[in-house]
């Protein structure tokens, strides 16, 4: 956790992902008078899954306000506001809708600073929620980190815990003068976490969240939790996985990844999106460009199946990699096909993080 003192009061021992987001939003408004939060429904009784609840009342309806349905326009408006002295935070209840604003994000927000030779800065935050389970279907389930991380000028994070949220968002609001895209995961919103995690001083990087000698798992977002579950299971059978939470997918810590792979010789990447041209590809690039000879086995990768997300639960359960898949792939990586390690039973992550059940 960074040294910032958040405007959040005393920190409890445990906190849910959603509560952390609300604290981060509150802190952003409290720490600078020029922060605004804009998004569809940010001031309604649901408050963006609770994360903006009460903030319009506390900080004023001119600082936390609803918007028309106009993703491209509102993103451009946020950019203009940032250019004239505000710190806008935009929210999207699904990351899929951010594709409507791709032009403003990629052609404008990402480029304004460079294109004008440093004359301008565009400090702003775009929050978006990745949907999963309960029949989100093809248009409410995408996780677009690689689309943004490909573009110079953007910072992209996929926080996997309240600690990561608090430190990253506080740091961004205070110190980052570029657009930052925060890709949050709906399935984590209701989960409680212990607050004893360490965070690096600069939270815009990757971090190791578990040490191990047998393989390296690089994970994003909720796959970090899955990796930890898999690691605990594997440990019962003598396999020690090291886990790196990629976190800042646009600016991962290459050294951290490489050092780990050099030690373990085995790499598994677990991402929330599709594999081609995704995070799995990028991690492979890092290793292949630096030192592929560090690999004692081919890299294993896990992500969404190469299709749109189906709605039927029976298909969704196989569309996403399960804990079973993760354990099996990790065990194979270390011990080969006949690894003999029993696979855990749960079929679907959504069943485990059960707090999320429709309608949305």
């Amino acid at each position, binding site marked *: 956790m960074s040294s910032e003192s958040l405007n959040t009061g005393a920190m409890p021992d445990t906190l849910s992902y959603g509560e952390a987001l609300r604290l981060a939003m509150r802190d952003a408004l409290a720490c600078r008078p020029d922060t605004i939060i804009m998004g569809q429904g940010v001031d309604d009784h649901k408050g963006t899954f609770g994360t903006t609840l009460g903030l319009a009342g506390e900080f004023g309806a001119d600082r936390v306000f609803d918007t*028309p349905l*106009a993703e491209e326009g509102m993103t451009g408006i946020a950019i203009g506001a940032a250019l004239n002295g505000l710190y806008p935070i935009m929210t999207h209840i699904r990351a899929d809708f951010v594709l409507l604003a791709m032009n403003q994000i990629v052609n404008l927000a990402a480029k304004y600073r460079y294109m004008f030779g440093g004359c301008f800065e565009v400090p702003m935050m775009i929050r978006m929620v990745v949907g999963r389970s309960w*029949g989100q*279907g093809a248009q409410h389930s995408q996780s677009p980190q690689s689309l943004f991380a490909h573009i110079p000028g953007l910072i992209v994070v996929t926080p996997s815990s309240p600690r990561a949220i608090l430190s990253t968002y506080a740091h961004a609001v205070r110190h980052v003068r570029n657009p930052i895209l925060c890709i949050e995961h709906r399935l984590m919103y209701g989960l409680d976490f212990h607050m004893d995690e360490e965070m690096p001083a600069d939270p815009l990087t990757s971090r190791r969240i578990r040490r191990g000698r047998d393989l390296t798992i690089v994970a994003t977002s909720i796959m970090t939790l899955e990796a930890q579950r898999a690691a605990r299971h594997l440990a019962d059978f003598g396999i020690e996985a090291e886990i790196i939470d990629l976190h800042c997918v646009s600016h991962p810590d290459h050294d951290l990844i490489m050092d780990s792979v050099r030690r373990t010789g085995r790499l598994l990447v677990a991402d929330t999106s599709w594999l081609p041209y995704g995070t799995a590809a990028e991690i492979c690039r890092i290793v292949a460009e630096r030192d592929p000879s560090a690999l004692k086995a081919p890299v294993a990768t896990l992500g969404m199946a190469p299709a749109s997300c189906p709605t*039927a639960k029976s*298909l969704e359960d196989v569309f996403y990699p399960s804990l079973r898949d993760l354990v099996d792939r990790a065990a194979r990586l270390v011990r080969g096909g006949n690894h003999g390690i029993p696979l855990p039973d749960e079929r679907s992550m959504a069943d485990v993080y059960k707090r999320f059940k429709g309608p*949305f």
Partner: protein
Amino acid sequence: MAFTDSEGKSDDDSKVSFESMMYDALKIRLVEEKIIEIYHSDRIQSPVHLSIGQEHVAVGVCAALRRDDPLFGTYRSHAFYLAKGGDLKRMFAELYGKATGGAKGKAGSMHLSAPEVGFMGSSAVVASNIPHAVGAALAARRRGTGQIAVAVFGDGATEEGVFHESINFAALHRLPVLFLCENNGYAVHSPLAARQAYRIGTLAAAYGVPTHSLERGHDMMGIRDLTAATAARVRAGGGPEFLEIHTCRFREHVGPGTDFDAGYRDDAAMLAWQATDPLTVHRDLVDRMTPALLAEIEAAMAFADDSPWPGPEELLTDVL
């Protein structure tokens, strides 16, 4: 029978009758009430955006369309799917995520489709279906099919830039498109006043598109007649037209419940709507029709229940 709306007027035989529209509207209502009833059972594991209170729009409009007129819907499409003639069994199977669903379970409630009756799919990205209707109309004209294409969308959808782009092109090329806006006054929990500086009808008219605004969205006969007259002009090559039909969503935006306790709207308006709702008013007709419909619904649910889940071999079909 108390006639509250234009259904009292004498009816042209060539038109879909009031009774038949009541049947369709009741079917939709009962289907959605059944969905509410069983939602807790988790047989439907997906978001549901109910049309209860708005069924009449779908029924009235579809009563004046040709079966092969392509219509593009939204995530809130149970009503239009059924009004256009979509199969009930396949619908329940789709809601249940079964292999016998219209889309083999890949679509669910938000993405119903029934191409065999011109129901060309439902998109859950607001306003994204509007240009599809315009494109379908372009194709209809080029291919000489005589179809008119219908874009169905809510009041909120008119805020998206693509609405503007679509209506401009349709008007410019005088394409056979019917723009149908179901104005229920809300986008999720946001009232019109928090979102729109314009009046929807005025905006549409700025493109030179004839617009018709109908306050009484429960008046199926009125909707049918207005749509029929409009569709005839559009089909005859008169260019696109715009219908705004005011209506009222009785339930929460998504999910099976009500949410008048949430404070963003009170139930007074809804109660006023309910008082003129033909499905409330015409109790006798409703009572008469209900048993057969319930039986049909039970049969559809049984079909869905008995149907298999799509197996893993379906995961990668239909991609390319």
